[in-house]
């Protein structure tokens, strides 16, 4: 296997993806940069329309065009820029080395095609399997993702499977060629809560078995808490905060992240109280105000926020925040945590925020923790 530059499997540099609409240019992704190390899991969190899905569709160049257009940036996969590769070579990466799971398993499988054919086609394409090999591989993959009586059910059509089962099929399909990177775009959003946990557990287990790197996109902080090494919080096409998971939960350095954390329901401590919600709506990314896009909804906003675009502040080695008051918010978070009796502010073994309720990130030993 090729070795990438300094252990990074994927490096996204200043990615900008715009959509031309009648309403003007929508800057869905506007200057995103991040790294993903081999074997790590990155969580991308944000509200609907924050650009998290577009970011990842851009990575494998699946932006529908027109109206979408990747305006600038680099997506370095093993140091090679996917955005400048010919289409045919991108296709050789898609599904084989980078694969995706989508949000809605009910519509993401072809309703007219047997599950077996949909699974076989990917290994026949990328691994040169014969029909028989591909069929056996399909059965094995279905067994791997925990579909009972896989051999008997492999020839079913998607409508004969439940939502959770279909998402398992999607995962089987995505992992068929043992990809180096799995992008899971809200893999549990369309599923029942009980099934959600099963699917996340399955992704985690398979990730540990195969060593695949994972990008997990979600709007549910509870989902990323237990699964990721690092988290990116996106808002209006920009990265608002970027930090190792524990650090982000323990001491968020951005008012938006704080608000997101606050809006996760906590039945233990807040029983009987109203659920917190961020006031207002996400901005129209076609007509962004000159200042900070979050300013109209921010509890911390001052005059400068409405006037000037905020700086991307480095809070410590691996913690960044896009905010005029990043330092103050960070200090405030640490003080709050200390008041709750947390560990030392810069400590490596900080406890997760109590706001998370039932979710406990410490289940998953963090490799990218603060102060590493």
């Amino acid at each position, binding site marked *: 296997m090729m070795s990438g530059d300094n252990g990074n499997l994927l490096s996204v540099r200043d990615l900008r993806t715009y959509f031309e609409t009648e309403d003007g240019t929508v800057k869905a992704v506007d200057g995103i940069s991040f790294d993903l190390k081999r074997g790590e899991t990155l969580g991308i969190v944000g509200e609907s329309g924050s650009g998290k899905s577009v970011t990842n569709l851009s990575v494998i160049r699946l932006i529908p065009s027109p109206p979408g257009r990747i305006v600038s940036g680099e997506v370095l996969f093993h140091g090679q820029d996917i955005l400048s590769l010919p289409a*045919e070579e991108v296709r050789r990466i*898609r*599904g084989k080395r980078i694969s995706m799971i989508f949000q809605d398993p009910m519509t993401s499988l072809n*309703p007219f095609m047997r599950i077996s054919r949909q699974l076989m*086609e990917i290994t026949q*394409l990328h691994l040169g399997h014969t029909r028989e090999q591909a069929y056996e591989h399909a059965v094995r993959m279905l067994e791997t993702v925990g579909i009972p009586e896989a051999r008997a059910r492999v020839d079913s059509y998607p409508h004969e499977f439940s939502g959770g089962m279909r998402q398992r099929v999607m995962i089987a399909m995505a992992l068929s060629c043992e990809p180096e990177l799995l992008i899971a775009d809200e893999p549990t959003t369309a599923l029942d809560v009980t099934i959600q946990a099963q699917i996340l557990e399955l992704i985690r287990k398979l990730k540990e078995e195969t060593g695949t790197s994972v990008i997990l996109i979600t709007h549910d902080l509870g989902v990323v808490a237990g699964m990721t090494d690092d988290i990116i919080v996106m808002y209006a096409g920009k990265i608002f905060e970027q930090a190792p998971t524990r650090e982000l939960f323990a001491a968020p350095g951005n008012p938006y992240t704080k608000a997101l954390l606050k809006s996760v329901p906590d039945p233990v401590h807040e029983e009987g109280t109203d659920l917190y919600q961020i006031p207002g709506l996400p901005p129209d990314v076609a007509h962004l105000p000159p200042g900070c896009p979050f300013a109209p909804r921010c509890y911390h906003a001052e005059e400068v926020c409405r006037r000037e675009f905020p700086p991307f502040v480095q809070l410590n080695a691996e913690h960044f925040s896009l905010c005029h008051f990043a330092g103050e918010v960070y200090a405030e978070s640490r003080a709050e945590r200390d008041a709750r009796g947390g560990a030392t502010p810069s400590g490596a073994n900080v406890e997760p925020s109590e706001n998370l309720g039932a979710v406990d990130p410490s289940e998953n030993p963090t490799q990218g923790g603060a102060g590493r």
Partner: protein
Amino acid sequence: MKFRFIVRRLIVTVPMVLIVITLTWGLIRLAPGNFYSTEKKLPPAIEKNIRAKYGLDKPWYVQYGRMMWNIVRLDFGNSLKYENETVNDILWRTLPVSATIGLLAYLLALVVGVLTGTLAALKPNSKLDYVSMALAMLGISLPNFVLGPILVLVFSLSLYWLPPARWNGFPSWNLVLPVLTLSAIYMAYIARLTRAGMLEVLRSDYIRTARAKGLSERQVVVRHALRGGLLPVVSFTGPALAILISGTVVVERIFAMPGLGNYFINANLNRDEPLIIGIVAFVSIAVLVFNLLVDIAYAFIDPRIRY
């Protein structure tokens, strides 16, 4: 299960055809004139003889009952105009002509329509899309009694490339113009149906999945998109094919083709009751059977459908 569905549908076909025939029979009675009426008034004695010969002096329910009894035995009797031929003879003689023109026209419409519709859907709002959809609009709005004569004027009477009319067996150059004329509107309609269907499918999640697998655009379209995208065309095919095969009045008239449609007009003008009823019965059976075939085809195309 599928077999039972087919049998049930075939059984339903019988009363439907009988209802159509009854209505037709009633309408013929309501229309003014007779098969024997001429410009000169017939002497009453002769008219009485004619009416007696054809049973028209009997009460209407006797006439209706006799007609129905013949039809149940699939014997439509003799034509009143072409007295040496039975209606069945005429049907068997004219059907191949109509079916040849109709099938060729639909085949052409299908190939050209699906192709342009798919290409247009792959590049929406491109030049190709705009040009082909403008042509399709023209094809739908231009009646074939206008298009036919224009084609004849250009290709026969000006360029002398193709014969302007008449049946000359299959294959022959005589078929080109009528098939084109007949095909135009179906071509246009299928192109639009295909474009709409493909556009919808190409936007769907499972096509994104197919692309994310690394399939080529051709594989994505042919293997994943066409099946769902062409469903509207399949449902259109049933009635369209039934109507095309059983003869199209205008085109057969313009190109002087001895097909079902041409005879149907004559039969109506002549008040040739047995022939009218024979053709109507045949066309309605064709429509019902082709619709049934489409429903059966649907079950094979879309596994979610169960009867």
